[in-house]
């Protein structure tokens, strides 16, 4: 036997055997006792009779039919759409989600996807708030397009000199004063000394002329005063008074055409 090959050394071997005996004789703890498998009981000598054969039960065909027809119990998934465009869109979405969320895809795809989703969400919220995104992005100080309805006396009208002449011949001095002033505005506009806009007042033009042709400003101020006094003030001026208005206007136009008035 292989054990016999060990060399027993006196007292040590005797102590070890004593310890083993004591351990074997000591009582086991309660848990260990519970865990210990119980000894199997001896089988009775005669087996009891077996159970009766099970009766086969069958589903009620009517009940099955009712359950099949119940809408709440329809778990079948719809087949893919027949429309080829929808099917293509569905496949595209699947492919995108597969690419974005597959373990192999990089973090950049995910960032791009979430950025696009947030952008779309912001657009929807802006739209719901009535803040048209396009206008909002263009800024708050945008201008509403101005639907001008220019009247017959637009300063650029080509017939202005003819109408002025006709008014003078008819002795309509007040009207002639007005048309003459419009002619002055036209000449100033043609020389880019003022920017004609229908909504501007004469004093807007006066301010522009002070910047672009300051030498002309005093004479223009006098013409403006004459026009406003006669036209807005409903002043019925005489022939002599109109002659003075006409002379001043012609002098102004002559100065305008012969000199360089750039500031």
């Amino acid at each position, binding site marked *: 036997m292989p054990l016999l090959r060990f060399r027993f050394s006196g007292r040590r071997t005797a102590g070890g055997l004593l310890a083993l005996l004591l351990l074997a004789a000591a009582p086991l703890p309660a848990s260990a006792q519970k865990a210990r498998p119980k000894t199997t009981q001896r089988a009775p000598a005669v087996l009891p009779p077996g159970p009766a054969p099970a009766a086969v039960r069958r589903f009620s065909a009517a009940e099955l039919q009712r359950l099949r027809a119940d809408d709440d119990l329809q778990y079948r998934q719809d087949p893919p759409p027949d429309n080829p465009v929808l099917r293509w869109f569905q496949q595209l979405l699947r492919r995108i989600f597969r690419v974005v969320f597959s373990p192999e895809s990089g973090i950049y795809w995910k960032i791009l996807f979430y950025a696009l989703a947030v952008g779309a969400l912001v657009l929807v919220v802006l739209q719901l708030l009535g803040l048209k995104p396009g206008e909002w992005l263009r800024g708050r100080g945008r201008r509403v397009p101005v639907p001008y309805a220019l*009247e017959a006396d637009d300063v650029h009208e080509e017939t202005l000199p003819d109408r002025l002449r006709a008014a003078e011949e008819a002795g309509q001095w007040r009207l002639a004063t007005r048309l003459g002033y419009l002619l002055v505005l036209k000449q100033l506009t043609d020389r880019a000394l003022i920017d004609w806009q229908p*909504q501007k007042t004469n004093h807007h033009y*006066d301010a522009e002329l*002070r910047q672009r042709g300051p030498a002309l400003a005093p004479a223009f101020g006098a013409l403006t005063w004459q026009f406003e006094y006669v036209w807005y003030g409903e002043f019925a001026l005489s022939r002599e008074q109109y002659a003075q208005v006409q002379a001043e206007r012609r002098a102004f136009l002559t100065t305008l055409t012969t000199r360089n008035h750039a500031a």
Partner: protein
Amino acid sequence: MEPTPDHTPDTAPQPQPAAPAAPDTLGLGQRTDLSQLAGTTDAVRREVGRVLVGQHDLMELLLVALLADGHVLLEGVPGVAKTLTAKLLARTLAVPFSRIQFTPDLMPSDVLGTSVYVPARGSFEFRQGPIFSNIVLIDEINRAPAKTQSALFEVMEERHVTYDGVTHQLEAPFLVLATQNPIEQEGTYRLPEAQLDRFLFKVLVPYPTQEEEVLILQGHHSGPGGLPLEDVKPVLAAQQLAQLRAQVQKQHVEPRLFEYVAKLVGLTRTHKSLYLGASPRASIALLNGAKALAALRGRDFVTPEDVQHLAPPVLRHRIQLTPERELEGLGPDDIVRQLIQQVEVPR
């Protein structure tokens, strides 16, 4: 300091105010003698200017309102001399003046008056409230709730008070100068639209410029007793004011300017950014204001410049923006500027 228009179309460059003393090369002279009006209004400005530093645009609009027989609502942050300006203007007029401080617990009877039982007579007697005056300063009008504010409807428009079925007439002139802090300030109420419409102008009182503020500081530094408010003398009597108003009423208005005013105000009713447009009362206010402004600037006729200049103070409190536009940060003045740019000037 030269007065400059505070609200003009945002087209550069901005126009200078109409020069009243343009060269009269034709010898047209003046059909209407406006010298008394000019002299009196200059005297009012001078007296007010002894105390008030700057605020020339504000003073011009107050004078226009005085000549046009309209009430004025002054709005500005605390400390920009709203109340002081109103008190100073009242002092320059030789008419009774009263001041009502609006508070959250103020009752209509505190303003209009109430019936008191007189035992000797065995009957009730109407005791007039502080509104029965010629110049009434309502300080912080938006501190009172709508109930008290609506007590002013009748008196501001019709110049009389009906109490217990009896109508009590107010003496002319009757001018309400009301001050208010912006409604964003805590403890304030929004004024009803019907009451806002009864104000000829809503004037925004700005901060002084740096130079003006230095002058204010110098004045306070030299005078230990504060501002010499009592030194301001009355220079305009009620009778005189009535004459000036009659003169303003006769100003020339070219027929197409009526259309211009009507178009401008009418656009507020169809503008897509507004859900409340201005009433015909606004058109009348704009016309009357323009006539007074023209007179103040030495003319006996109205120009489109006058109308454009007064459009913001006349319209800004009478229009209401849609919530979308308010969210975009637009204000009434932005819309008024757009309106001015949409209407062709009659010429």
